[in-house]
């Protein structure tokens, strides 16, 4: 085996077919350019985690688990709790994933998802302090990709958001001696908003949402935008060597804004189902 990372090669015939269909605003899987695949969100799938969610976007499958512990805050943010998002693509998820520590794509995935959650102020980190500067709550989100069929950014983001939104922890308090004690009370995390990520791919001059892995193998450029409840863009990431001009970015933002509202309903549906169950 060579040490060079393999990536998916799309057959030239298939690529030609895809480009021809795209010029007629159609896609290989019969979707329109702006149609999302079916999204299924299940929460509370891991019994022993503080919060968890499994998300399917078409054939892409992602599972996320939240663990809430106590830890020391970072020196530069003594007044904030910790949030750490980590993502891994399991070797069984794709023929192109290798065992071992997360590769650069998995690290990018974790960073982009983390940025969306952090910058949308989803968790009010200032409420996670136990002893200022010394002890805070630490929220660890671990995401495992179970099956790869494109658009890992969005699937991972939905799983992360759904697992954080349904996470529960025992209420802690600090006694007179400065010791941290736990109470019987179980509380949710301080959630302020629900961020929604939407990824678009540019193939030729065409922008399309929710790319499959075949489309990702052919795409020229990729843009991920994260929206909060008030349709503000709170995070973004541009990927691949291709460029996006100003009009394309504006168009992408407008499309993504509309799609984010659509997805938000699905995420909220998944979260509230857990609250009832």
């Amino acid at each position, binding site marked *: 085996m060579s040490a060079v990372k*393999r990536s998916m*090669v*799309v*057959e*030239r*015939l*298939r*690529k030609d*077919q895809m480009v021809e269909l795209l010029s007629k605003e159609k896609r290989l899987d019969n979707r329109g350019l702006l149609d999302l695949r079916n999204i299924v969100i299940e929460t509370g799938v891991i019994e022993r985690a503080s919060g968890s969610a499994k998300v399917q976007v078409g054939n892409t499958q992602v599972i996320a688990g939240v663990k809430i512990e106590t830890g020391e805050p970072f020196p530069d943010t003594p007044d904030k709790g910790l949030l750490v998002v980590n993502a891994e693509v399991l070797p069984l998820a794709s023929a192109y994933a290798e065992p071992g520590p997360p590769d650069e794509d998995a690290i990018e995935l974790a960073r982009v998802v983390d940025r969306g959650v952090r910058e949308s102020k989803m968790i009010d980190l200032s409420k996670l302090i136990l002893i200022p500067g010394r002890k805070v709550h630490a929220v660890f989100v671990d995401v495992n990709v179970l099956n790869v069929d494109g658009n890992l950014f969005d699937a991972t983001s939905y799983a992360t958001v759904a697992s954080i939104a349904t996470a529960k922890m025992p209420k802690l308090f600090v006694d007179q001696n400065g010791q941290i004690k736990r109470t019987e009370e179980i509380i949710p995390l301080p959630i302020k908003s629900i961020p929604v990520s939407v990824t678009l791919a540019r193939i030729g001059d065409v922008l399309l949402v929710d790319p499959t892995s075949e489309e990702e193998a052919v795409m020229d450029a990729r843009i991920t935008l994260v929206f909060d409840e008030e349709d503000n863009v709170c995070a973004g990431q541009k990927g691949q060597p291709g460029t996006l001009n100003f009009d394309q970015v504006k168009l992408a933002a407008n499309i993504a804004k509309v799609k984010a509202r659509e997805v938000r309903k699905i995420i909220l549906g998944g979260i509230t189902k857990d609250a009832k169950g």
Partner: protein
Amino acid sequence: MSEVKRKYVTPGELIATGNYKPISNVIKVKDNFYAIKIGLAEISHEGIRVIPLSGPYIPKVDDLVIGKIVDYSAFSWEVDINSCFFAYLPAQSVFGRNFSPDRESLPERFSIGDLIYAKVVTYDRTRNPILSISGHGLGQIPKGEMVKIGPAKVPRLIGKKGSMIKTIESATNCRLIIGQNGIILIVGPPDGVLLATQAIRMVESEAHLASLVKDIQSLLSGSREV
């Protein structure tokens, strides 16, 4: 000809006891023969074999396969043949014995993403298979629609002496190129391609049923009337 007994088995199931020869996908423990794959067990005078219902493509010498060029070096192309092995197509077998990497450039002949119809010339389990495109009808595939099915279903798609394939071809006016590795290319008019794809999908999902031939015929004739 002696009688052939067939039955469906699951891994670990006892197929027969006695003095037989194990042919494929069976293990012998004392005088008992157990299946190691899910599939159809055949007991004949030759021995015992299990024809698997699913599984990856394991190359065999002289198999015709459809492969995708995924990489190339100075002396060979690397070909994805839908298997657990990557195959190699040596440049010498394409450009001739006098091939020199100074004179000929590999990507000019086949570039990454091209599909080729090729023959497996050497393979054993310790080394990756080597392909050749010298032979009638072999070489680059210029056009067509690609359909992937489980490699274990390919014999059923071909049928007895190619009967199934002939039925589909004549009903849809398409030509089918079948790779033993489960990749099929359909060339023909768009309506025919659609119908042939449906027929192939039906073969894949109903490969284990005895009613397959009838179902395929009704699918093909039914839409002919439409």
